[in-house]
């Protein structure tokens, strides 16, 4: 059977002119739709603008920004633009510190989300005969359900393997003839390591042909290493739960940056300080406006991710904007094994233990291809009860896992051991090379 190289030829191969015309039409609609909630009504009133002020695509700059703090303050349903009974799904960010963010979806939102993911997977050569193993966390984390629905939409045999349990993953890859895997990059390297221990050669013993990697920053070298290890191409995937989840941007076989789907989003790169637009090629903060969302449209959402525009055409035939891989963050968020973590979440947990002092240090390292977090914390006072220390360490680990969904290495150290810096304490040391 021969297939088109495009999942949706019409939308994927539009000219710039067509893209921009469609964007303007959808932006005007989105702006009107946004005014169904009080949050945007108030913002528009404060700024003295009305939907009629949006006459050209450049007028997007007249619109207010939306931040994660806005989502928190309107928690849980203040950003919704449809009645709750029209919503069929809710995702929420991790962590119990402060209000979580809540993202609502209508049935149509879910359909469009699945279409975006299916479009991406089709773009890198996957077809209904392929076997897709999704080794990403399920539940509230969007990487699981997002790829599940997208891969099923494409018509692939989809294995919801979820994260972890490497021995079983490898068994499935071999037994089911898995041809494509989605996982966070650090987990792919972990899988390879376990394959080696088991004497499994991915080139010889598997039918793999495509890897989709995303949800945590990684360098070009890391990608090359993954490709060399597994013997297949690894494509960078970008998504965030505020937009829907995975599907927002994806590399094509050219691997020359991520295509962001401009029929779904308006992409801007701004200076994180002045909020002025950055010229093409220069690094700034990624700002996204949704164009098709029903339940929760967002205007000019500040992602805090730093990147730059690489181009607006591509040999693959798609003229959707190409962005560089993520180059950093404009806040102190860490991304470890696909999970977003703020230092304050860890601090909050540590401070709940009276046995601990105030000084702590978070160190991120890559050991044998695994990304690890070590939390060192000073004890408030000495003790000779080894058992009690073991129990304490275990309890800290358990509570941190509840909060950040990962189990860090916890090291109890005696008072005065950790470096005390003047002024703002250094709490995080990132020894990984994720941003190059």
């Amino acid at each position, binding site marked *: 059977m021969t297939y088109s190289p495009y999942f949706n030829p019409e939308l994927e191969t539009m000219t710039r002119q067509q893209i921009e015309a469609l964007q303007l039409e959808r932006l005007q609609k989105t702006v009107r739709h946004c005014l169904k909630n009080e949050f945007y009504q108030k913002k528009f009133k404060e700024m003295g603008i009305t939907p009629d002020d949006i006459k050209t695509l450049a007028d997007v700059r007249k619109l207010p920004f939306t931040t994660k703090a806005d989502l928190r303050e309107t928690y849980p349903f203040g950003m919704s633009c449809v009645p709750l009974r029209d919503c069929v*799904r809710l995702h929420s960010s991790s962590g119990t510190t402060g209000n979580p963010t809540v993202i609502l979806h209508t049935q149509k939102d879910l359909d469009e989300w699945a279409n975006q993911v299916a479009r991406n997977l089709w773009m890198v050569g996957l077809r209904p005969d392929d076997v897709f193993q999704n080794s990403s966390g399920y539940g509230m984390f969007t990487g699981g359900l997002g790829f599940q629905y997208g891969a099923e939409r494409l018509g692939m045999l*989809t294995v919801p393997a979820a994260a972890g349990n490497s021995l*079983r993953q490898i068994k499935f890859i071999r037994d089911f003839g898995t041809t494509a895997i989605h996982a966070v990059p650090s987990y792919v390297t972990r899988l390879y390591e376990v394959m080696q221990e088991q004497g499994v050669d991915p080139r010889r013993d598997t039918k793999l042909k495509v890897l989709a990697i995303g949800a945590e920053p990684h360098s070009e070298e890391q990608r090359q290493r993954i490709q060399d290890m597994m013997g297949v191409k690894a494509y960078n995937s970008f998504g965030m739960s505020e937009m829907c989840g995975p599907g927002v941007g994806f590399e094509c076989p050219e691997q020359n940056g991520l295509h962001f789907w401009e029929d779904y989003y308006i992409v801007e790169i701004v200076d994180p300080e002045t909020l002025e637009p950055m010229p093409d090629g220069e690094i700034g903060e990624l700002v996204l406006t949704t164009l098709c969302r029903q339940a929760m449209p967002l205007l000019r959402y500040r992602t805090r991710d730093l990147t730059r525009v690489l181009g607006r055409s591509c040999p693959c035939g798609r003229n959707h904007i190409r962005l560089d891989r993520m180059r950093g963050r404009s806040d102190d968020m860490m991304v470890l094994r696909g999970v977003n973590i703020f230092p304050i979440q860890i601090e909050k947990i540590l401070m709940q233990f009276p046995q601990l002092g105030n000084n702590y240090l978070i160190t991120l390292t890559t050991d044998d291809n695994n990304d690890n977090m070590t939390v060192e914390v000073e004890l408030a006072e000495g003790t000779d009860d080894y058992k009690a220390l073991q129990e304490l360490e275990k309890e800290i680990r358990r509570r941190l896992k509840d909060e950040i969904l990962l189990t860090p290495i916890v090291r109890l150290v005696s008072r005065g051991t950790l470096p005390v810096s003047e002024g703002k304490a250094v709490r995080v040391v990132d020894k990984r090379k994720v941003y190059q």
Partner: protein
Amino acid sequence: MSRDEMSALQGKRLHKIVEYVYHNVPFYRHKLQSMDITPDDIQTIDDIVKLPFTTKKDLRDNYPFGLQAAPQSEIIRIHASSGTTGNPTIVGYTRKDIGVWTECMARCLTAYGVGRNDIFSVSYGYGLFTGGLGAHNGVEMIGAAVVPASTGNTEKHARLIRDLGITGIACTPSYALYLAETMEKMGITKDQIHLRVGAFGAEPWTENMRAEIQKRLGLKGYNLYGLSEIMGPSVSYECQEQHGSHINEDHFYPEVINPVTLEPLPKGQTGELVFTTLTKEGMPVLRYRTRDLCSLMDGQCGCGRTSVRMSRIEGRSDDMLIIRGINVFPSQVESVVLSMKEFAPRYMLIVDRVNNLDTLQVQVELRQEYFTSTFDTPAAIDELEKRLAARLKSVLSIGAKVQLKAPGTIERSQGKSAHVIDKRKI
């Protein structure tokens, strides 16, 4: 639907499914041929007694895709449950199967009184386990807002239940109790939450547990039954009457048999539950022996449904354990222990319920000759325990706490149950 209409529909579908597996599954073709049965011998639902049984062992022997009837390109999803040894049981679903499953799940939720205005949290594990995605699809179908909470991070979950005004929840009954306890610890009171419906399943539970959950969470708790070999959750469900669970018998035909003689038992008598899938495309099964012990109930229910009902699960006809909703066989643990040379071929599973959460401890015996001068530190022993725990997790899909015992301290077992101490009261 009247009983006669139902029987006629079941008979028609049974003939079709037998014909389908006869032509598409070599395993069934050989079995039927060896019993001298052709699809034409099966015309009414009563002819089902002529058909061969299918067991978990058959699924294992045909791992991974041997019992699959549809071509691979038609399969869009795979789920897996634990097998009795290393190989899990694999079930492939076509798009139509997912549709039927979703509809059956929607029927369950409708019987519980869940509608599109509800906010419904699915707190079964997502992934290969059918609980999460199965319940999830049904909730989306009826148009309620689904919160894919999955398992873990109970404090956050409790907060969402309060803040979002979540009205329904699907989870294991023991998790519901754990949730209630967590809320009480956090100071979240019953009048701050709006839960009204609970869909509880994936593990056996009692009327006492139901009463306690209802009291502490202020909701009405309904039974939800299913198994991945047949479909997943939604095989049967309780209605408002809560007098037995209605079986979606237009898709899953139930029988109860004597587990020793394999003779069918009359309604009302307790025996092993057996299901035949009447409409499944991906992996249909004929007379699958669930090993669950229960009885069937006839007669129209107070709710108006005429479908046959099943009693609570009263036990198992094998040594399978259900721990946190996951099926665990002692033989799985054995296969792992035997694969590591550091351990003697002796082990013990200790299952308990602590703060309403099931715990599994696996005791293993260190072989004397592996305790050497390079092995005499807590660090080395911890490493070995962790290695065993990782392998167990990989095979069992749930975490087990490993306890290393000195040589010769675990009693040599006689008989199969000697490997298990179940301290829970269920």
